[in-house]
Structure formats: C-alpha cells, structure tokens
C-alpha cells in the first residue's frame, strides 16, 4: 500500500491541477470585468457633493471628510472680502464723521444752558450702558486684531509679542462676550418701551433730525435716530452674540460649513456694528453739546431736553408733579 500511495497522490494532484487549469480561464471569462478598475472618482464626488466623505476608524467623525475644497472660498472671504468690508465701513464712517464735523461742527444748545437739569438716565441704566460699551470696545479691538492685526500690527512688533497680545485678546474676546451679551439683553428690556416706532419718528426723519440746519423736530424720550441705534444694538448685538457662541463652542451640532458661515456672519455684522458705534460715539461726545451728560452724570440741561426731546420733557414735567414712582424725573434747580 505504501508503494501505491505515492503514485496515486501524484495522479490526483495532476488531475486537480488540470481541472484548475481548465476552470481558471472560464472563471476569468465569466467575470471579464476587473472589479478594481471601476473606482469612485474624486472629480465626480467633488462635483456632486462639494466634499469627499467616507468612513474612518477613529472616533473623530470630522476626520471622515477626506477633502473639502470649500475652505478656499472662506479663505478668500477672510483675506479679501472681509478686509474690504471692514475698511470701507470703518474708514468710510470716520471720513463721513470728519466731513460732517468740519462742515456742521458741534450741534449747540441753541438757546444756551438754562442752568436747570433733569434726570435722563438713572444709575442702573448708566451702569448697563457703560458695561456694554466697555465690553464692546475691547471686543471690537480684539476682533479687529484677528482681521487686521497681521498686516497692520505684526510688522511693528516681535512675533512672540504679537502672539502674546493676540492670545490675551482672544481670551478677552471670549470671556467679555458674556457681560456684553448680558448688557445687550438688559438694554433690550429696559429701553424697549421707549424705542417702539411711532408717528413722531416719521416727522423727525422727514426733518432730518435737526442735524442739518437748525431745525428741532419734536421727539419723545428716544428720537428716531436713537431708536435706530437701539435696534442695531439689539439685533446686531444679538446676531454677533449668537454667531459668537457658535464659534466659542466649536462643533456642537455644527459642521465645518456652519462654523465658516458663523464666522462670516459674526465678522460682517461686527464690522458694520463698529461703524455704527463710531457714529454713536461721535454724536454722544463732540457731535452735540450737552449730550454726553445724559450718560455721564445722568442729567441733562432742560434747554437741551427742550430742543432735542421736547415731548419727553413735557411728559416728565407732567409726571414729575403727579407720580414719583419711576426713575425720579425731577427738575432740579442749579447744577
């Protein structure tokens, strides 16, 4: 048996090999397509979905996106579009203000100071205003640093110093967003009733708010221009806050596209916001005599109130005698 086994094995092997040899070409003919030849195409995927996404093996699902050329569009926005928007809005506003100041000058109290003053904003209102304002200034400067710091500030400093400054600016930007948002919410609530549009606003706007010429259109506590600033602060501040919190908590329910969009909304609104606030700062300081006191000491001259908020003065006068409930609108003699 031992002698027979070896030849038998050889025969069997030969038969097996022969069958395999016949069978193999048949199998390849039946398939005839090379299964590895028809691959997914990068170009097609990019055209269809704008990104190439697949499956990975690590927990970070963001990494399953192989390619997302859309970042290039965002880069162009950040590098070119945003800088133009910012430069035009901010420098444009500054130019307008300079021209306006040189041609119109400070809006004076026409009838001179009466020597009597009236409470315009109480301590709480002023606190909220200045808290929001201080946060806004720091937020604006640290935000502008992200867009304009590299071309404008970095050449003047050592890179390490600029990094140290920018890192602190980043933390200031992130954490001051909370008191700023609180301020916007409080501003919205405490001045809402005075800032709803009325028919008086139409006439005020028609008469140019008395900024050009020496007209003094009547206004309640807030005129149409102030109402405009109020709504820009409330809506713009709201938009900046919401988009900012999306950026501060990255990838919580957001994708890279929504992060890019949040940054775009945040930066465009912020640039326009800064431009508007420059106008607000102008009119509250060198643009109008007697205006700063409203937020400074909280009281304004009665003649100032008569010229700029005649209806409010009347209301306060009437209320001051009857009900001493609200923020004490008393007319006091002297300073």
């Amino acid at each position, binding site marked *: 048996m031992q002698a027979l086994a070896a030849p038998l094995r050889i025969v069997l092997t030969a038969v097996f090999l022969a069958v395999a040899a016949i069978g193999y070409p048949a199998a390849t003919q039946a398939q005839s397509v*090379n*299964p*590895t*030849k*028809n*691959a*997914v*195409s*990068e*170009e097609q*995927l990019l055209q269809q979905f704008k990104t*190439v*996404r*697949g*499956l*990975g*093996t*690590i927990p*970070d699902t*963001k*990494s*399953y*996106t*192989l*390619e*997302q*050329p*859309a*970042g*290039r569009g*965002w*880069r162009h926005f*950040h*590098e070119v579009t945003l800088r133009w928007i910012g430069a035009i809005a901010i420098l444009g506003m500054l130019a307008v203000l300079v021209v306006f100041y040189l041609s119109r000058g400070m809006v004076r109290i026409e009838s001179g100071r009466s020597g009597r003053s009236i409470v315009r904003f109480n301590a709480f209102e002023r606190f909220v205003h200045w808290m929001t304002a201080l946060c806004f200034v720091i937020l604006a400067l640290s935000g502008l*640093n*992200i*867009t304009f*710091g*590299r071309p404008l500030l*970095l050449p003047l400093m050592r*890179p*390490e110093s*600029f*990094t140290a400054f*920018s*890192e602190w600016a*980043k*933390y200031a*930007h*992130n*954490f001051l967003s909370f008191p700023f948002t609180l301020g916007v919410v409080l501003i919205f609530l405490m001045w809402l009733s005075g800032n709803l549009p009325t028919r008086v606003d139409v006439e005020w706007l028609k008469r140019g708010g008395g900024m050009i010429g020496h007209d003094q259109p009547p206004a309640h506590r807030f005129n149409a221009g102030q109402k405009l600033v109020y709504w820009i602060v409330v809506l713009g501040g709201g938009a900046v806050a919401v988009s900012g919190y999306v950026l*501060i*908590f*990255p*990838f919580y329910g957001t994708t*890279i596209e929504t*992060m*890019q969009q949040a*940054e775009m909304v945040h930066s465009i609104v912020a640039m326009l916001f800064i431009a508007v606030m420059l106008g607000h700062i102008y009119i509250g300081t060198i643009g109008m005599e007697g205006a700063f006191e409203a937020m400074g000491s909280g009281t304004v001259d009665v003649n100032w109130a008569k010229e700029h908020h005649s209806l409010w003065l009347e209301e306060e006068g009437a209320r001051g005698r009857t009900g001493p409930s609200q923020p004490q609108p008393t007319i006091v003699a002297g300073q």
Partner: protein
Amino acid sequence: MARMKFLCDADRCIECNACVTACKNENEVPWGINRRRVVTIDDGQPGERSVSMACMHCTDAPCQAVCPVNAFYTTADGVVLHSKDICIGCGYCFYACPFGAPQYPRVGNFGSRGKMDKCTFCAGGPEPDGSPAEYEKYGANRLAEGKLPLCAEMCSTKSLLAGDGEVLEEIYKARVVQRGYGSGAWGWKTAYRETVSS
C-alpha cells in the same frame, strides 16, 4: 530643490492603517491627535477606495494665508510647517484647510484648543534640527536626516508615496500604464492645483 509632496495610490491602499500607527509612534503624537488617517470611500461597495490623508503641504497653503498671527511658513522643500510658540489656537486653519489636517489637543470651548498640531512631513519645526525641544513639540525630523516620512516608508503596498513631486508623478504614471487603470492622485488638484495626467 525638490518639491515635497504626498501621493496616495488609492488603487493600492488596503486600509491597514500602518501609516497612521507609524506616524503616531515616530512623532510621539499626543493622545487624541491624528496627524494622518485613512478614509474609505464607498465602503463595502464595488469600486470602494481607501485613501491615506494628512496635511498635503499645499502650494499657497490656505492655513498659512488665514492664520491671524502668521504661525506658518513654507520651507524651501515646499513643506508647510508652523511654530507652536506663535500659534494662538484660534482654529482658523482648521476652517480653511481642505483636508482637515490641523488638530488640537483639547476640545476648544472658550478658545481653549491649545497649540495646533499637524503633519510636518517628518520635518520638525522652527527649532534647531534634531533638538529635544523640536522633538517634543513637533516630533521627528527625518527630513534633516535624509529620510522620508515614516508613514510612506512603512507602507506595505507602497500605496502612500512621499518625496519629490516630479518623481512621485513618474512612479504613479508608470504604475497606471502597467496596470491599465488608476483613480488618480487624490487631493492633488485641491492641494497643488494640478493633477497627474495618466
């Protein structure tokens, strides 16, 4: 001067993730950071392809362009590197990168991402070549030793290639001619604005 590039021949990648492991080990990459990853497209479908992806060291790199503190620099070999001393961890490079290459050691709430980390083409950082400080921050500097990135060197099927772009192109073209097909150099058009014409 060579223009260093990566090329992943997706028709050869078997999704073994050896490149990922090699990268982590060679560079002592911190926990949670993946400088390189393998993504499988159309997994389980006919024609599925796996591609190993890391920083592609783009021409005119978007990360470098958007960085608010100018932390990036491109070496004479076309390798895009960055300084962790300059980085402020703002996350902008991640928003601009077409390949999701920038990684951060922490989650990033309240801007606490930490210093960005990404593939260095095994070329270290701005510190002196081969110094302990360089190794600690950026990992190995194999390029300074005349070696190519370990991910490509380790690749068992020679799917992932690293080196001078022109040489890579020749190798890839020869492969495509020999086997009669090729799904192209993934990411090249996005990274280098050119493709390998096969």
